């Protein structure tokens, strides 16, 4: 990301602004745009057409301004606190959840140089901050003083912890192949990866198909989306830990949910589909480096949308698991499968480099 400011601004050297604040603002914008895109394209439109209905059509062409209408609606709603609620914890919970989401965006590369911070432990960091949201969920469930919220929060905590494990283990295979935890290095490794001696097509989804599957399933569970939406199961728990929230705070939860979906889809596309890199996209474009940046961002966006499509397709097709079935699925199926995947990846890696 090149610097936008020069000299000093507000008495502080421009380099500081370029290095931190501007990048964070861009990351925030990315998170909000991503969440909005998912909500409009998938939650409003794709799902409507899947269910043989139209979805919102009145606001703007094909209902495209509905999103703004929804946001305005939420903002002008009353901010209700239940009488027995623990006010400070109740008020803070949505922001803990969205903070954990926004922190993921710090390490996701959207282009050859488009990353807020190229941490060397990038993927580990992303998964670590994504699990902070459990705290916010538990806070919301406990502070609401509502039995449905409490049950929902406890289910969510159990589920997020159970599915964190296969999520991490699914990534181990990719990390072993790439030899790095840095997300940009993982993208570069896919560009250089040769599958049976054939280079240029070696996206990690091909050798790590099992890992990709486990990652998507666990991501679905992390997002608490159907078939893993026991924590917010609307036919039994009303809205789970979000039951008592209204107005802006509910909106923050809502944005958090879809921004996390966008972030996890971004992680999946970086880890398994080559991120911003496209097979056949050369390493040096000379003085057209900016164009490579733009193409890379577009490619990344397309891949994220592809994975988002799968996530929402599954969400609106399948019924939901029961809590015990969901836990059994994680502990008895996904985790052993991911361990086997790691073992096979290790053997293949040693064999390939014999």
């Amino acid at each position, binding site marked *: 990301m090149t610097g936008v400011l020069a000299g000093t601004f507000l008495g502080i050297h421009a380099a500081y602004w370029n290095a931190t604040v501007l990048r964070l603002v861009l990351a925030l914008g990315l998170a909000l745009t991503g969440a909005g895109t998912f909500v409009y394209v998938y939650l409003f439109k794709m799902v409507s057409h*899947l*269910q*043989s*209905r139209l979805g919102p059509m009145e606001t703007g062409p094909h209902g495209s301004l509905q999103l703004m209408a929804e946001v305005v609606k939420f903002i002008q709603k009353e901010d209700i606190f239940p009488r027995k609620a623990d006010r400070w914890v109740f008020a803070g919970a949505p922001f803990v959840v969205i903070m954990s989401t926004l922190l993921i965006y710090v390490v996701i590369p959207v282009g050859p140089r488009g990353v807020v911070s190229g941490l060397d432990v990038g993927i580990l960091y992303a998964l670590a901050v994504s699990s902070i949201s459990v705290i916010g969920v538990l806070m919301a469930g406990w502070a609401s003083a509502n*039995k*449905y919220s409490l*049950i929902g929060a406890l289910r969510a905590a159990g589920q997020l912890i159970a599915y964190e494990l296969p999520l991490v283990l699914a990534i181990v295979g990719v990390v072993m192949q790439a030899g790095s935890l840095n997300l940009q290095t993982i993208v570069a490794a896919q560009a250089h990866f040769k599958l049976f001696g054939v280079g240029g097509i070696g996206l990690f989804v091909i050798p790590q198909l099992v890992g990709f599957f486990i990652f998507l399933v666990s991501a679905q569970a992390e997002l608490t989306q*159907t*078939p893993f*939406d*026991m924590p917010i*199961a*609307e*036919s*039994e728990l*009303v809205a789970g830990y979000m039951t008592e929230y209204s107005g802006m705070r509910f909106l923050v939860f809502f944005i958090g949910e879809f921004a996390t979906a966008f972030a996890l889809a971004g992680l999946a596309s970086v880890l398994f589909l080559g991120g911003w890199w496209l097979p056949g996209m050369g390493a040096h474009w000379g003085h057209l480096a900016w164009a490579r940046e733009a193409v890379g961002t577009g490619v990344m966006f397309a891949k994220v949308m592809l994975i988002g499509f799968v996530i929402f397709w599954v969400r*609106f*097709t*399948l*019924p*939901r*698991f*029961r*809590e*015990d*079935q969901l836990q059994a699925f994680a502990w008895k199926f996904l985790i052993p499968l991911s361990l086997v995947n790691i073992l096979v990846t290790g053997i293949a890696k040693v064999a390939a480099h014999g």
Partner: protein
Amino acid sequence: MSVSEQQKAAYVAGQAADARVRFELETEGMTLNIGPQHPATHGTLRVIVRLDGEQVVWADPVAGYMHRGYEKLCEVRDYAQVTTLVNRIDWLGSFCNEVPFILAAEELMGIEAPPRAQYIRTVLFEMGRVANLTLFLGDMAAQVGALTPVFYAFRDREYVLNLIEAATGGRFHPNFDRIGGLKEDLPKGWIDETKLVMRKIRHFCDEIDDLLIGNRIFEERCRGIGVIPRDVALEYGLSGANARASGIDWDLRRDEPSVLAWKDADWKVWTHPDGDSFARYWVRQQEVRESTRIVEQLLDGLPSGPIRAKTPARIRVPAGETYVHTENPLGEMGYYVVSDGSPGGPFRCKIRTPSFSNVSIVPWLLRGVYVPDVITILASLYFILGDIDR
């Protein structure tokens, strides 16, 4: 038992359950009120459940939040006005509520509607069943988490409702049945359109086959959940698909001599031996298919003639009493009508609604299940609140 007595019993049972729980583990149970305002109860049923973690120790349904006093109202309305009331009992298949009451009145008066009217009554009755059970097929899916089938159900039910509206003038509450026949004949072109829609409904059932039946998650959520053995079903007086799903081969349309035209169609009563939630779902799906077949056959053999027998201008039902029951979408619905021969309405009208008996099994059924199964079981028992409290 009155509500306060019921609550007292609930309290005692809850204490006992707590004591059991505390004996094993130093924990305290939690009482959860599912309803009266809750997305899973299709209205205002309240289910008090005592929870130990996610497991139900004890549960009790509390009906009466929607009591509208129809049995009393029937006594102060005349016969023509009563159909307007009873339309609102099972509001998803309204026409089916009118028929047994009108049949009871006809029986007391000793008149019989002409064959064409009986045929059209049966057709509309079965279409009410299709409209009702189609929605169930989608709703049950929504209760276990699949959101798409419910929209398909609303879409295809709309075709049926449009036809009911075209024939009767009322989309939800037809109020079309009269003593001695029907209000009007069918509109032009209605028969062909109905046959088309019945094919659409069968296609919807096939879509349900694709989406849910055989889906691993759906089967795991429903199979073996809420098993009602045959003898328990009989003891609690279950009727309709709930009884047939427990292997009781009993259908009033076939087993009860009736003036309606079911005997003229070739159809089958489906039963399922398992008695679980899946069986109840499956049986209702087959019933929708059979109903579409009944409608098609009856429309093919629709006799010509008048649609209304000669009745006196002022309805006066002679003294006497009778009980007429039919196989409604939710189960056996019956009217015990007592007339004292005075002009005006019945002296007493006892309405036997299927949902009231069907939910009586809830305390027995919910013991020891998990909270998500509570929803599955309530959805699969399929009650309509207007049918519990009338």
